[in-house]
């Protein structure tokens, strides 16, 4: 379902349909943390021009996006009663564009995880096969779009938290350049890696959404002053002469023959359209270092970012003899052991005696990786690879802790986009064993347009525009 679906119906009907559908599939998917009563938002539409780009379009927000007066838990127990006192900048932008949020979508606790099994209100299930994981951390948002509840949903992406669940659920997952979309009001994971991203079923929608969401925000010093382009009307599927680099290190790790064949067939089609497709290879040691480097940096920042969750001013409070005890008890009970483990790892890397050889070293490696990738992007329009070497794993077989060394590069390469802040998009390319598969492309900073252009060509080839799954209640 894309943004233009159901536009002939009244806003009320359209929104009610989305809410009904979300409720109907909730038992199966568990994608929603809280449903939002849309009445006030629909009332507020009166003040908005009917030509607004998202007028009356239902949407879902990941539950780490602050909504004033509406429960926002980040799927963590410690925030399970947290009602924000302010709206995130993007919430205001979406409201001005006429969008109606109908649900806060489940996620891995505080964005930490890639399965969406680590959520306080329970696991989220894949829209195509509920015995499989949705992927995470923006699993709820991905699933709500993939199951046709809403035409778009907002997520966040620190390692691949939009782009991986997009791949597993057969929808488009877009993460623009770092600084393109304001992060003000987004409950963070790791500030230097966090991006706002989103899910759609059509490239045009992805381009349109960026026009709505992007732009300088004085409340986010890392947001860019760069002019927002008219991405949607600029879309041009003529990709002749575009230079595309296949990341060999990633593709070598793809073992599934059907996924390999699908990828190759797509590349052939792009060549047939006049694109120049070549193979490149990043230094293997740098690619091997992607995940460990990410783990150190993300968790170091996270341990500080979440030090505000102490039970003193908001959130869950567990009593204690002293103020210090209140903090200790609240944090012990408020976070899952999985999250606490990440805090310990983050703190460890920041200790004075470790900082040089762990945290600072990881920062240097990050820079080396970005320089390595930039060298390629200096000569190519995009780098491309399979978004995952597999279809979404069965829930029973997947845990965030268990990462096999063999799939280290293939399953973590999208971190490149977060390290360098490069714009990056996941686009579904077909099905294997009834489950969606996808490619991922990244481009130079602020060249989102080339992703939309090549993405449009891919969409024309796959004919998967607007595709979603019928989830039976």
């Amino acid at each position, binding site marked *: 379902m894309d943004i233009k679906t159901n536009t002939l119906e009244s806003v009320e009907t359209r929104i009610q349909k989305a809410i009904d559908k979300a409720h109907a599939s909730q038992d199966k998917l568990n994608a929603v943390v809280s449903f939002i009563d849309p009445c006030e938002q629909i009332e507020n539409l009166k003040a908005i021009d009917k030509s607004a780009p998202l007028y009356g379009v239902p949407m879902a927000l990941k539950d780490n996006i602050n909504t004033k007066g509406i429960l926002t838990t980040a799927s963590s127990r410690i925030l399970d009663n947290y009602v*924000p006192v302010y709206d*995130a900048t993007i919430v205001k932008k979406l409201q001005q564009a006429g969008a109606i949020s109908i649900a806060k979508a489940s996620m891995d606790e505080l964005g930490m995880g890639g399965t969406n099994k680590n959520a306080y209100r329970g696991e989220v299930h894949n829209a195509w096969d509920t015995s499989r994981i949705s992927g995470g951390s923006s699993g709820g948002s991905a699933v709500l779009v993939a199951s046709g509840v809403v035409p778009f949903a907002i997520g966040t992406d620190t390692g691949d938290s939009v782009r991986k669940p997009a791949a597993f659920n057969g929808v488009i997952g877009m993460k623009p350049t770092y600084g393109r979309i304001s992060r003000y*009001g987004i409950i963070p994971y790791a500030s230097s890696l966090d991006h706002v991203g989103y899910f759609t079923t059509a490239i045009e929608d992805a381009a349109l959404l960026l026009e709505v969401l992007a732009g300088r925000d004085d409340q986010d*010093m890392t947001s860019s002053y760069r002019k927002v382009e008219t991405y949607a009307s600029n879309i041009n599927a003529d990709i002749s002469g575009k230079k595309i680099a296949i990341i060999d290190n990633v593709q070598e790790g793809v073992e599934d023959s059907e996924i390999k064949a699908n990828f190759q067939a797509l590349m052939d089609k792009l060549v047939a359209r006049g694109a120049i497709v070549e193979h490149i290879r990043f230094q293997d040691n740098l690619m091997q270092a992607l995940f460990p480097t990410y783990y150190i940096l993300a968790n170091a920042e996270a341990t500080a970012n979440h030090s505000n969750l*102490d039970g003193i001013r908001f959130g869950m409070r567990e009593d204690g003899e002293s103020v210090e005890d209140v903090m200790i008890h609240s944090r012990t009970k408020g976070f899952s052991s999985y999250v606490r483990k990440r805090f310990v790892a983050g703190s460890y890397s920041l*200790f*004075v005696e470790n900082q040089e050889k762990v945290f600072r070293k990881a920062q240097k490696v990050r820079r080396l990786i970005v320089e390595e990738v930039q060298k390629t992007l200096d000569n190519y329009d995009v780098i491309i690879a399979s978004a995952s070497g597999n279809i979404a794993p069965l829930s029973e077989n997947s845990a965030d802790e268990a990462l096999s060394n063999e799939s280290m590069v293939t399953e973590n390469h999208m971190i490149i986009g977060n390290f360098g802040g490069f714009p990056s998009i996941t686009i579904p390319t077909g099905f294997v064993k009834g489950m969606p598969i996808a490619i991922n492309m990244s481009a130079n900073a602020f060249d989102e347009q080339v992703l939309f252009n090549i993405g449009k060509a891919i969409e024309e080839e796959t004919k998967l525009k607007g595709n979603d799954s019928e989830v039976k209640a």
Partner: protein
Amino acid sequence: MNYETVIGIEIHCELKTKTKMFSSAPTSFGEVANTCVNEIDLGHPGTLPCVNKEAVRLALLAATALKCEIDPLIKFDRKNYYYSDLPKGFQITQQFHPIGSGGNISIDTPNGKKNIRINRMHMEEDTAKQFHSDAGTLIDFNRAGTPLVEIVSEPDIRSGAEAMAYVEKLRALLYYLGVSDVKMEEGSMRCDVNVSLREVGTQKLGTKTEVKNLNSISNVQKAIDAEVARQSALLDQGERVIQATRRYDETQKTTVLMRKKEGDVDYKFFPEPNIPPILLSDAWIKEIQDGMEELPDERKERYQSQFALNDYDADVLVANRELSNFFDEVCLHTKNYKKAANWTIVEVIAALNKANIKIADNPCNPVYLAVMINMVDNGEISGKQAKEVFEEIMLGKDPQKVVEEKGMKQMSDSSELLTLVTSVLDNNPQSIEDFKNGKDRAVGFLVGQVMKASKGQANPAMTNKLIAEELKKR
């Protein structure tokens, strides 16, 4: 034994900005608790810091005045620790790249001028204020996020008196620059002193204690003197000084243990990822430095060389920025600097004290005071009349109008005066007789009569001269 005292001082100063260091909430003092806060100050999830440009400007001024080397690339770091007065669980500070480093200031000591080196000066945010009671702890977040600079001296200070001079000097500097209110009693300037002793002639530093939260300048000296006495008594008895944080107890006049320091706390400093490094342009830095107000030392020097004021007068004026600014204004309109200084230091202060008005709210127009001084110098009014006029000036009135209204204008026209003198002499033949018989007092009587006849407006000097001349003629 003979000990040398070694003191280093850390000073936290609240910057005088309208809004907080990283949020747009207003800064405040004495407002109702938790009314000057927003989601950023409370450390709510998802909030991001935004650097206050005015705070950077003020910090830049302070660093320049302290003769620090300025780092034009502004960077911030996180200092991580859990405490209920620290909403985010970290403080944003400048650990790795302070805006200023390696400065110095000169203080006056009984042995002459002494240079105290400044190690560093950096920007950071203040914490919330806590009130502990049996019923629990109350937290006021109004102060949370207030911009601060921390100024760290090298251990160059050798006595409580020097420490006091250092703090006083720093206070005057920051006050002059308009950087801070520097009110120690209100906490807008806070002072922590590190004190250690070592045997005279040795180089190795002794174990130090930190005395915190001294709430007045005189307490800086008292606390240090008490701590030095305590430490030397310990050492004399062959005991060790234990590294600890202490506070000064005013009633006991001694320092009291707050907590022992067992190893350094690891604050896990790392760069603040939400604030990209900000490169200050050379032009902006220069603009700020060029617009910097004259500092107290320079001002005193100018008063002595240009206005020929004595040491005492210059000191009294410079000690108060508003008074000194007032004096400078007066001097723009009169050349009698000495008189301008006298009127300012003696009469203006006395009048303000009497009316219980702060110097900052001085109702006296400096131009009027200058005009009045000139009127006296030109003989338009007498010194005695000036005192009366001055009272009106202190109510904001124009001296020329006052003189006119009260008919005070001094009679300095010689022909007009001569008429008066002639008539007085004509009416007092006895006095002329007395004068001729050598009674000089008669002159005084005659002058008095002229004054009376002129309703006090006759210029006394001219009257004296005219009477003397006219008497000779008779």
